[in-house]
């Protein structure tokens, strides 16, 4: 841990050309970040996880443009319409032609349940286009637009690539909008617990003694309580008449309030092991103040670990929000998150009639897996000096 600050190295020593020419000698002079990147690159699953995570966050940014319609649009005529498969080519006399379409619906009466059900009608064709004009929306609250990446060319005929829920709302659009809420809660919650964790973990590890003991007991206590019942109790206490945005922040605070303990442990462990390192002692003898010692010398050497732990704690936050919203204790419409969407699949009856309502669960699964792999790779790479 002698090389703690990348900036102390001359920049020319880390150019990629040098790395190619003589790997052995380049390793010895490469900066810490360079070494971490090399190590991270070797971790195949982590690279895939990183790319998928990036894609998910890009989706979260361009939600309005990417979704075919808005999540709140209710179409009572399309209750539980099944998913329509997107076809790119259409059969004509001159062979296959590029012309995206989906098959329309026809209504059948279920003789047993005496209920209207939608079936895909192979005869009907609904034209689908890319970059179509549809419902107007406000992009990032800045300007108005009605351009959608994909959608029906006919405003009267909606398309449901992933089916509709019990109110005829488009599941795909809801899921895309849900991406923004679910992923941002994870990110926001992590930053809140990052703050708490680094503050309390830092105090605990740096000063040791009684303070350390006290904080450690508190952490052990929080970890010993089963989280879901506790979250449920706290979330239920949020007043029901709060506006959606405030509920959103309330839920985030509740989740991160319990999530900071893991991070605090990592920070404390690092502080404890670094406290006795020679370079910290040197800084102290040099007359550096406590804050300078911490921020200038200690934090850079475990910053990478923190990033890795942060990444690994996002999935927990996402799962927490999903569980709470699923139980109707978390977010509520008009705010849509993946958990809010899964509320629709709460009982076996709706799952049996409309199994596609479980698809948001797949989104949770992919996001959590990707973040886990990414975090795992980052954690391995965070300590490049370790084999």
């Amino acid at each position: 841990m002698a090389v703690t600050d990348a900036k102390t190295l001359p920049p020319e020593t880390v150019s990629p050309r040098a790395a190619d020419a003589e790997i052995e000698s380049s390793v010895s002079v490469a900066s810490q970040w360079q070494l971490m990147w090399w190590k991270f690159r070797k971790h195949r699953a982590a690279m895939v996880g990183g790319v998928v995570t990036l894609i998910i966050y890009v989706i979260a940014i361009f939600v309005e443009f990417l979704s075919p319609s808005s999540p709140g649009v209710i179409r009572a005529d399309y209750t539980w319409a099944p998913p329509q498969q997107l076809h790119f080519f259409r059969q004509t006399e001159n062979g296959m032609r590029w012309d995206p379409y989906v098959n329309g619906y026809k209504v059948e009466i279920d003789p047993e349940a005496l209920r209207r059900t939608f079936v895909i009608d192979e005869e009907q064709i609904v034209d689908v286009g890319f970059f179509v004009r549809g419902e107007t929306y406000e992009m990032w609250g800045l300007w108005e637009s009605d351009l959608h990446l994909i959608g029906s060319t006919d405003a009267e005929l909606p398309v449901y690539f992933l089916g509709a829920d019990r109110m005829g709302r488009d599941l795909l659009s809801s899921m895309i909008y849900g991406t923004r809420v679910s992923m941002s809660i994870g990110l926001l919650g992590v930053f809140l617990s990052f703050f708490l964790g680094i503050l309390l973990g830092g105090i605990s590890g740096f000063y040791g003694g009684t303070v350390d003991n006290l904080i450690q007991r508190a952490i052990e206590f929080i970890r010993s309580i089963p989280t879901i019942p506790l979250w449920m109790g706290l979330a239920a206490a949020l007043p029901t008449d709060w506006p959606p945005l405030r509920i959103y922040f309330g839920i985030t605070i509740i989740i991160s309030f319990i999530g900071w303990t893991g991070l605090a442990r990592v920070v404390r462990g690092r502080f404890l092991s670094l406290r006795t390192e020679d370079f910290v002692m040197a800084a102290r003898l040099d007359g550096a103040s406590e804050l300078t010692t911490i921020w200038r010398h200690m934090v850079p050497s475990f910053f990478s670990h923190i990033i890795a732990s942060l990444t690994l704690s996002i999935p927990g936050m996402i799962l927490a929000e999903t569980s709470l919203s699923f139980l109707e204790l978390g977010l509520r419409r008009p705010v849509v998150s993946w958990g809010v969407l899964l509320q629709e699949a709460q009982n076996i009856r709706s799952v049996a009639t409309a199994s596609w309502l479980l698809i948001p669960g797949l989104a949770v699964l992919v996001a959590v897996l990707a973040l886990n792999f990414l975090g795992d790779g980052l954690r391995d790479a965070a300590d490049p000096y370790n084999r």
Partner: protein
Amino acid sequence: MLQFLLRRLMFMIPTLIAISIVAFVIIQLPPGDFLTTMVASMAAQGEDMDQSAMRALEEQYGLGQPVHIQYLKWMQGIILRGDFGDSFGWNKPVAELLWSRLALTFVLSLASLLFVWVVAFPIGIYSAVKQYSIGDYFATFIGFLGLATPNFLLALILMYIAFKFFNQSVGGLFSPEYQEAPWSWGRVADLLAHLWVPVVIIGTAGTASLIRVMRANLLDELRKPYVVTARAKGLPEWRLLFKYPVRIALNPFVSTVGWVLPTLVSGAAIVSIVLSLPTTGPLLIRALLQQDMYLAASFIMLLSILTVIGTLVSDLLLAWLDPRIRME
């Protein structure tokens, strides 16, 4: 050992007090006290609350008095009389609703823990011994998948599969004929026949992480020189494995119970709601949605205490397994 036990018990007291305070805070969190809610809900049903009954309740819970007095009154009732307060949603003392549900939660969590151990132990050993084999990769993959799937989603998917392909429902813990029946061997057998579905669902996440722990520990152990020595001496491979490395790798296995148990209890709560099991979960969520706070807080408190006791037992087990810990 006795000294160790006593010390651990002493450590538990502040934890228990802290848990009770958190539970009490949860009672206090919703706006207004429960009496006003109760009066409002009774007024909505067209009933008037008896003034003297109201005063008696006010006296019993110390309403209108400072918060710490209210807390002490609540604790006093629990410790001296086993009285957790009243559930106004059910119009019954909380204690009446509590115990049977809590007992089933306990059985469910314990069964899940056993399941986690029984599954994670051999797979963990296999993954470590055959590192980077197809089986190892498969176990790792399943493990990650188990970690990433929320419990309730797994419950929903299993319910859907059971409904779609086997045309049967998997909810509940008892068949209809045993639902209200008194305890008998038949009822126990019926419970066991239903128990495996929630146990498997709740156990997956814990199993995944324990497999990782077991694998990592055993790998560390297998690289040590004494293993090489033993192999050089010509010890059969299975004896070499089970004589020391597995035993040492098992220690963290036991100590992880401390954090596996809270996850299991958490998972049990949410899975019970989806599968509508007669455990604490469904009652807890109903109590929370109705703001039936004494019931909800009592559940949260007892679930937490149950977890802390479980952790204590695992610590004792660890101390019994590993002399270094109890000598510390």
